[in-house]
């Protein structure tokens, strides 16, 4: 079972070093035909923000974006498509993530290995979240005690 929702897969997986992910994708597709439905591309995405004063939309800036869409075919009707868009200037990484997306989404052969990476990645991300949480917890202004000391 994969308990992590698909929307968090890229975030979790990219907690691992890029070359590990590329190697994992290669290993898991050794017996599969990989066809590209969309060429791996490295380019830019625009950040659209909805500002809070009047809810106008504007572009805050750009970010490096790589994307790829693949279809994996292991024969015997074992097949599935996967897609990835990742904040990185690395088309090869996007391809690897698209492959892992296909494997996880369709539980293709050895998906358990990919799921293991997913969980480990998720754990690393929780550590980061925890760290940020500490920043907030340690700098919270306690107005109640402020009031108490004031005459």
């Amino acid at each position, binding site marked *: 079972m994969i308990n992590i929702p*698909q*929307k*968090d*897969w*890229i*975030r979790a997986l*990219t907690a691992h070093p890029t070359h590990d992910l590329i190697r994992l994708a290669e290993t898991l597709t050794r017996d599969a035909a990989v066809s590209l439905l*969309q060429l791996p*591309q*490295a*380019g*830019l*995405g*625009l*950040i*659209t*923000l*909805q*500002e*809070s*004063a*009047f*809810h*106008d*939309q*504007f*572009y*805050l*800036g*750009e*970010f*490096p*974006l790589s*994307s790829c*869409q693949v279809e994996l075919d292991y024969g015997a009707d074992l097949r599935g*498509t*996967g*897609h990835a*868009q*990742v*904040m*990185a*200037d690395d088309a090869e990484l996007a391809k690897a993530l698209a492959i892992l997306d296909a494997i996880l*989404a369709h539980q293709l052969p050895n998906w358990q290995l990919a799921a293991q990476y997913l969980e480990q990645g998720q754990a690393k991300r929780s550590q980061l*979240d*925890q*760290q*940020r*949480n*500490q*920043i*907030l*917890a*340690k*700098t*919270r*202004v306690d*107005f109640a005690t402020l009031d108490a000391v004031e005459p």
Partner: protein
Amino acid sequence: MSYVPIKGGGQAIAGAAAVTEFLRTEQALHQPNAQALDLQTIQFQLRHLVDRVISEGGVYHPELAALSIKQSLGDTLEAAFSLRAWRSTRPRLCATPALDTSKMRVIRRISAAFKDIPGGQMLGATPDYALRLLRMELINESDATFQHYAKEWLKQSNPTATTPMSFPKVISALRADGLLPALEADRTAQAFDITREPLIFPVSRSATLATMARAETGSLLALAYSNMRGYGDVHPTVAELRVGYVPIMLPHAVTGELIEAGEVLVTECEVIAMYEAQSDAKPVFTLGYGACLGHNEVKAISMAILDRALQKGKKDGPTNPSEDAEFVLLHIDGVDSMGFASHYKMPHYVTFQSDLDRLRTAQQQEACT
């Protein structure tokens, strides 16, 4: 002046590049073990510098921002410039759906308007209340001390502390109380892409915000400061200032579901200014909005003040420079303005020769009359 033409320009250019490289590596003459700055060091230890280059370059790429800081010897204008030029080499693949900053993973959040904001105030990392005393102990900081601190800091933390990561916006509450202008349903126009379309005035607010988000911090601050000091009337109160990571959500090609592709550090600020009468309703406060990539509070606040000033200028006609959209927006881009200032250093021999010819002819004409 010699009459030999500018020969050897190529050599001089190569020489200038080599001299710059010499200066970059000169330290090794004095300290044989000196090491080149590595990008991680720049990203972590000079993070505000990196943030500034990211937001003025207009591309959230901390690693390349660190590289451009390294190669420009720390010149922020040059570094932002290199990052901008890099973006010309990459195709535009898509724009995100409109992202909502209430999903921001906050690391700092304050309000000057209320003590008790829902979710609370968290100072995060700020120099606001620090004494600006030089920390002499850092002059000879040992590796051991440096390597020790972060670990210890984490250890001291309370692992069960569970402050929520995202918070409602302060102005939502004010809006619910009827103190702010109501949201208009029809303000969902397509965002304006300043990297593709020229600014032809009057421009939309979307274009205004995008231009300011990429602006040079000092230029934005100077214009906003003119408004604060007296060439304007914003007198702002910071309703909320927040810093944090906004998840970048993009639709999955197969399922259509929004997937997190990464996160960007953003500073965001809303200012509240004097209320004004509305023709057909009770008076409400006016608002200004600022946001930029990276952690840069002065920029976000300056932008919010100018946003408010420009709204007033658009409505009543500009009465000072900071309310004039053309004046503000055409003069705050660091890359444009530094490029143009620099270009006056280039040879203008031919046009100057032509000027000489005209002046002499005019002088002759004058002498004849």
